[in-house]
């Protein structure tokens, strides 16, 4: 089942005199349950592409269709609402609200979605256990390691039951041990719960785990391989 369909996507940053063509003509589709890596050197346009997929940035040209919704036409609070309900985000850093505990961070997005307290409680606990943090639920982010923080971010991203999760270099700040743990958890969620993950990286160890590897260079796709 197709979740995302991207057609002829372009993004040009207009910085006065210089124009940066960060993304130039990407066509892609993602299926439900994919575990896909966007790979490419720094500056190749990965972040720009993911931001547009997630509705954080608007394309200069082209179309993004998420489950039948034309995201490239959306604006303002409708877009914010759409993001909240359909897309889970994991960023490289600054994922969590520092003054809230791990559990409250996961609950936060469910509160925005106006879920009931019981629903929030059970789901937050369930998700934190799933990412292996059942015993750190009441810790604030500053009391967690970088890897643990990223796992909370994954749990938070899952909380809203999104159609897919976008993770922009989620392991960039992690050591190899934490990187492995995080990827194992993501892989497990993908296999067992059929969660769609789209993540960018330039780390070879992360690339190895992906089942689909999309390589970009200069804002264009140069290869798109699937492993069986």
């Amino acid at each position, binding site marked *: 089942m197709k979740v995302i369909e991207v057609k002829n996507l372009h993004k040009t940053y207009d910085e006065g005199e210089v124009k940066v063509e960060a993304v130039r003509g990407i066509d892609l589709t993602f299926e439900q349950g994919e575990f896909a890596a966007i790979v490419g050197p720094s500056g190749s346009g990965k*972040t720009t592409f993911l*931001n547009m997929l*997630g509705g*954080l*940035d608007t394309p200069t040209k082209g179309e993004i269709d998420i489950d039948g919704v034309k995201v490239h036409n959306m604006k303002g*609070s409708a877009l*914010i*609402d759409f*993001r*909240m*309900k359909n897309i889970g*985000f994991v*960023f490289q*850093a*600054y*994922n969590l*609200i*520092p*003054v*809230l505990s791990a559990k409250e961070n996961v609950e*936060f*997005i469910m*509160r*925005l*979605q106006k879920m009931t307290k019981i629903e929030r409680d059970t789901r937050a606990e369930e998700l934190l256990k799933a990412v292996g943090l059942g015993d750190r639920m009441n810790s604030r982010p500053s009391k967690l390691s970088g890897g643990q923080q990223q796992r909370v971010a994954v749990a*938070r991203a899952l909380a*809203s039951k999104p159609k897919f999760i976008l993770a922009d270099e989620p392991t960039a700040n992690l050591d190899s041990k934490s990187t492995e743990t995080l990827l194992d958890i993501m892989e497990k969620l993908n296999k067992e719960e059929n969660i769609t993950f789209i993540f960018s990286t330039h780390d070879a160890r992360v690339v190895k785990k992906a089942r689909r590897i999309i390589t970009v260079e200069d804002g264009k796709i140069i290869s798109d391989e699937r492993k069986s």
Partner: protein
Amino acid sequence: MIWSIAWKNVWRKKTRSIVVIISIALGIWGTIFTYAFMIGWVNQRVYAVLNSEVSHMQIHHPKYKENNDMQYTIPNGNKIINDLGSISGVKTYSKRVEIGAMANVSSKSTGVIINGIDVENEKQVTEIYKNIIDSAGTYFDSKKSNLIIIGDKLAKELKLTRYTITPELISSLRNKKLPESLTTKLDSLIGINYRVEAKFETALQETLGEELATQYFYLIKNKAISYKIRSKIILTFQNANGELSGAAFRLAGVFKTSNSMFDGMNVFVRNSDLQAISGFSDQQFHEIAIMVTNTDSLNLIQQEIQAKYPELQVETWREIQPEMALSSDYMNISYYFFLVIILFALSFGIINTMLMVVLERIKEIGMLMAIGMNKMKVFLMIMFETVYLAMVGGFVGMIFSALTVWRTGQSGIDLTAFVGEGMEAMGYSAYVFPEISIDYYFGTGIMIILTALIAAIYPARKALKLNPADAIRSDA
């Protein structure tokens, strides 16, 4: 949820928040306490005006006050006195004869105003009888004729005072925990009488040394003073027929109000004694002073009396002492004016702090917007945070104000050592009892919240302008 995150955010940078809170608290405390001090001061003055000097209302012949010409007695005065009792809202009233005179004691003489009064009625209207200094006589308690009550200031001018150090005085100073070096030195002065304040002061300086003497002069002086009760005072004046007249009076008591000018000018004698020498009959007098039951209806009562006696001058204390009424009325407005200035200054600190908050949290705010927190909620979060910060500061400031106002309002602030005589010369007490009504606290609280809301707008708008993609990418 937003409000609880905002509350927790306030305490993220504790030191910075506490600095802002303390500055707000100090600003608020300074404002409230300053005004409590002034209000207490003015209210005491108003109390004195109403209860010792002017009363709520006065009736005169319309020409009397032009230059206090004593020919202008109130026409049909006794009829008015009889009528006043039936006017509703009038509580008490007293009639007075007022005559300008010279007061003589041996070689000293000075100008005074003789108030010829009906003692029992006067007690209903003024509280001078409560202001008789301890062990300085009584307020016409004796039945003897030709008694006179004078003020402390006049007693000093006429040299009817004496300064003596007694063993009792020294032991009372010891009880007050004054330095032992002071009390032992004073022993050498026991029993010596000083007639003049200046001589007494010199003696104190010689025995105690410059420093101790200056520090404790006021205190010791007020304990050492005594008055020569039963001294003879000669009053000389022109009588009703324009002839020079006069008589000797015996000093019965000395009063002291917070207004030393009043104390220096006014002497009180029984009207019955005065009639014998003044040429005025029982029917003739210059002034009726009135107290009402409820000051809210003061103007209505004034109008009623004025309508009944259109030929007389009927004035409330506000008309007799307009500057006093004005300072009392404008206290409120000037308070808020002052507060606005203070809050305006504080708002720069608040804006600066909140701008730093937004700047520090660009990535976090970007993340919040990315995961679905809408602009309204981001805006509210910054607003709440600002309001909390200001409210905590305001709350601390108001609690501190309430405590200090309460404490000093109980004990009074003693300004005698600094400005005592100067203030009293202007009619203001040298003991201030700060007071401020609860309305000021409510008003201040609302003003603080308003200030916070206004100060929050600019930083909150900065946060709103952030674009999540740029914010997360930013290297700040």
